[in-house]
């Protein structure tokens, strides 16, 4: 049994926790990057909640010493929204895969962006289903042959970056797990940014995706200029639809939208989380008495 008697600020779990990832997995650098960001921000583990769905990426919260909710396949975003609205002072981060967030939970992505809770969503995008052994994901390239698509994938892949920009998401970025130093900068900014932040992070799957390898991602990406105007939506779209080499960095960032928490009347004057709130019996009794 694992004890949590020594909660460390470096967010490192006890050595006895058995890691379920394959050697060389692209999830390892993402894990280290997120830990680095949390340390850099000097957050207390008690004030951080990681939320995930199902899949190999969704196991990441197991390996960081903080609160977590490892729920159902595809359902991480509504859970994270619920956590944030019940306690806005928690730093809420979703860490899940492309199948989870873009496939099973695609509808939630659309509407979470519309609702705009101040959460950060990190999507480990390996362009394949790992845990179920190599089937196509919503980001797998057309024509890719898999055990369940023996004649090649016929659906065209989703473009999560363009989708998020079209919904006016406050922060939209892409990173590469093979370049953790830049990824750390991007994720750090995503967490600091007010509102819904999406970070799509390219993650090589060393067992089931023999195409999109560390080298492939290196050869097929480039970093956008940093001094661009990231509030320009049209420009962001233009970059988002590039296919020749895939752009990395921050596509779009703005603070024009109110967050879900900010729309709640009582949080304007009282930031107390819901678990500390009591009820006002007088108001309720008056309401009952008014039912004449």
């Amino acid at each position, binding site marked *: 049994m694992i004890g*949590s008697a020594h909660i460390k600020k470096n967010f490192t779990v006890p050595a006895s926790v058995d890691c379920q990832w394959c050697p060389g997995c692209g999830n390892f650098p993402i894990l280290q990057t997120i830990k680095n960001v949390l340390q850099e921000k000097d957050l207390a583990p008690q004030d951080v909640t990681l939320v995930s769905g199902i899949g190999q990426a969704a196991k990441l919260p*197991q390996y960081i010493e903080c609160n977590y*909710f490892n729920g159902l396949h595809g359902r991480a975003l509504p859970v994270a929204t619920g956590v944030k609205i019940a*306690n806005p002072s928690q730093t809420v981060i979703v860490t899940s895969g492309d199948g989870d967030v873009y496939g099973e939970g695609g509808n939630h992505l659309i509407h979470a962006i519309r609702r705009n809770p101040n959460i950060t969503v990190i999507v480990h995008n390996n362009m394949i289903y790992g845990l179920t052994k190599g089937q196509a994901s919503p980001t797998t390239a057309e024509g890719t042959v898999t055990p369940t698509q023996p004649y090649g994938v016929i659906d065209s892949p989703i473009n999560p970056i363009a989708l998020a920009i079209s919904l006016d998401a406050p922060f939209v970025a892409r990173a590469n797990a093979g370049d953790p130093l830049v990824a750390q900068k991007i994720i750090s900014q995503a967490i600091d940014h007010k509102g819904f932040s999406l970070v799509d992070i390219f993650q090589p799957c060393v067992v089931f995706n023999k195409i999109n390898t560390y080298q492939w991602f290196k050869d097929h990406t480039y970093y956008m200029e940093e001094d661009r105007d990231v509030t320009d939506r049209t420009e962001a779209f233009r970059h988002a639809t590039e296919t020749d080499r895939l752009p990395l960095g921050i596509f779009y960032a703005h603070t024009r939208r109110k967050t879900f928490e900010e729309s709640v009347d009582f949080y304007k004057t009282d930031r107390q989380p*819901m678990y500390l709130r009591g009820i006002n019996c007088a108001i309720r009794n008056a309401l009952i008495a008014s039912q004449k």
Partner: protein
Amino acid sequence: MAHHIVDDLSIVIAGQAGQGIQSVAHLLAHVLKLQGFHVFATAEYMSRVRGGINSTTIRISNEKRDAFRSTIDLFVSLDARSFAFYKHRFTENTMFLGFRDDAFCEDCVMEVNFASIAQSIGGIVYANTVSAGAILGLIGADEKHAREFLRNFFVKKGKEVIAKNQEALSRGFKMGTHFAFSHDVHVAIKAKEAVKDDLFMSGIDAVGFGALAAGVDFCASYPMSPGTGLLTFLAQHSKECRMVVEQATDEIEAVNMALGASYAGARSIVTTSGGGFDLMCESVSLAGMIETPITFHIGQRPGPSTGLPTRTAQEDLDLVLYAGHGEFMRAIFAPGTPLQAYALTAHALDVADKYQIPTFVLTDQYFVDALHKVEKNDFVEQNNAKHIVETSRDYKRYALSENGISDRGVPGFGDGLVRVDSDEHDEDGRITEDTRGLRMRMMDKRLFKRRELLESCMIMPEVSGKKSAKNLVVCWGSTRNTVLEAVENLCDKEYAVVHFTQLFPLDKKKIKKIFAKAGKVIVVENNATGQFANLLKKECDVTADKNILKWNGEPFSVEELIVQIK
């Protein structure tokens, strides 16, 4: 033909959707209550916004009679086509007001074109007030109360609207009075002073007040009849009661948001109907696994699939009983009166928090839409403690304990960390595949130990009548008052009523005892397969000798139950 009504009058107002039937019913119910009558109203309507035929039944009585009567004493038609829909409810004594249909008794028809009178006052919108006036005049109500009610009701709309409505009322009232005189109609139901101060409440409002009493913090739901009423109620009161009430994009989002909020320490409720709940089933299983509280209100309606969207049924007990894969504990409640709805909703929320399980409140269209008169002082305080602890450094969310309940911590409250996992997990919430150790202990904790706890605090059914009666009539949820009135009408001491409000879990020993000496067990349910009777058999080894079932989308009426029970 003379009509002398002394104790019980049933009025049906029928017309198209959009003609303002509900407004007439609202006005009548309130004015009649202010006058000191016991009033009960139930609505039935088609699944459309305009047209069709809808109706409201208003029952006025000497004694409290909150049950659906099929027989119509006074039929008020705002639309000529409505006769055919309700003819099975007419008797030779039924009086008709409004449009005429020659197929029915000429002698007791007051033919009035409400619309043309309304036009002469200033617009068709006043037609329903004319009809309300005619009804009140016919039964000899006090016009003063009605005029006052109209003034308060339209206060925000200005003097002209008030004046025109009062004129419409007067015109109708005079006609009603005249008809009563010419046809020797005499309504002599005794008014009672005490009734005037009573409250009016729909079934869904009572559920809502129960949620407020328990201190609900969060509700996310997707609109679906007849569950929507609770979402509307909570949204309307969200500001003053400091709740977050969010219309979700779909039911899956709703339930997962509620679970996220609950994990972080909110008291959470979701509301839906059977079809919407189908979509939530996976998350019921999740709630069971992660031991995170959540309460579901389910307003039942007839299925399968879209079924009859605005009609009533008790068809989803099996659904709720077995929802979600895997094996875990849950508790299911079903109120039969507004007061029960108030207390049981609060109780369901408390049980969810205290025992860290999913709980259910089952109502139906008939119950949520019915308007009941209730006594204010009956709404007593409910438990609203959240059963949350401040965690210490060595906190373990699923620490194994004697009774199976682990302390519930929430993120950020104390020094501990709160880990929940949909995978089988260890005490600390981390994934495990220890099939011989932890799996067994966690199942024991979630299922067997909780069952014991929940059985020990079971809400026992209410037995009305002689405990040693030979024949026991069993019912659950919304059928309570109808069954009680039917059995009362049998005037036979060998019949007693057993009404269940906790449907699961059932304490076999205690329940068996109630039925030990029964000669005949009759189970009444608004479904086709006898879902509760089957549960009684399975859980408590109590066999129904007779099932009285109805599944056409309508509620039971007192009259048909009298015939069927005997």
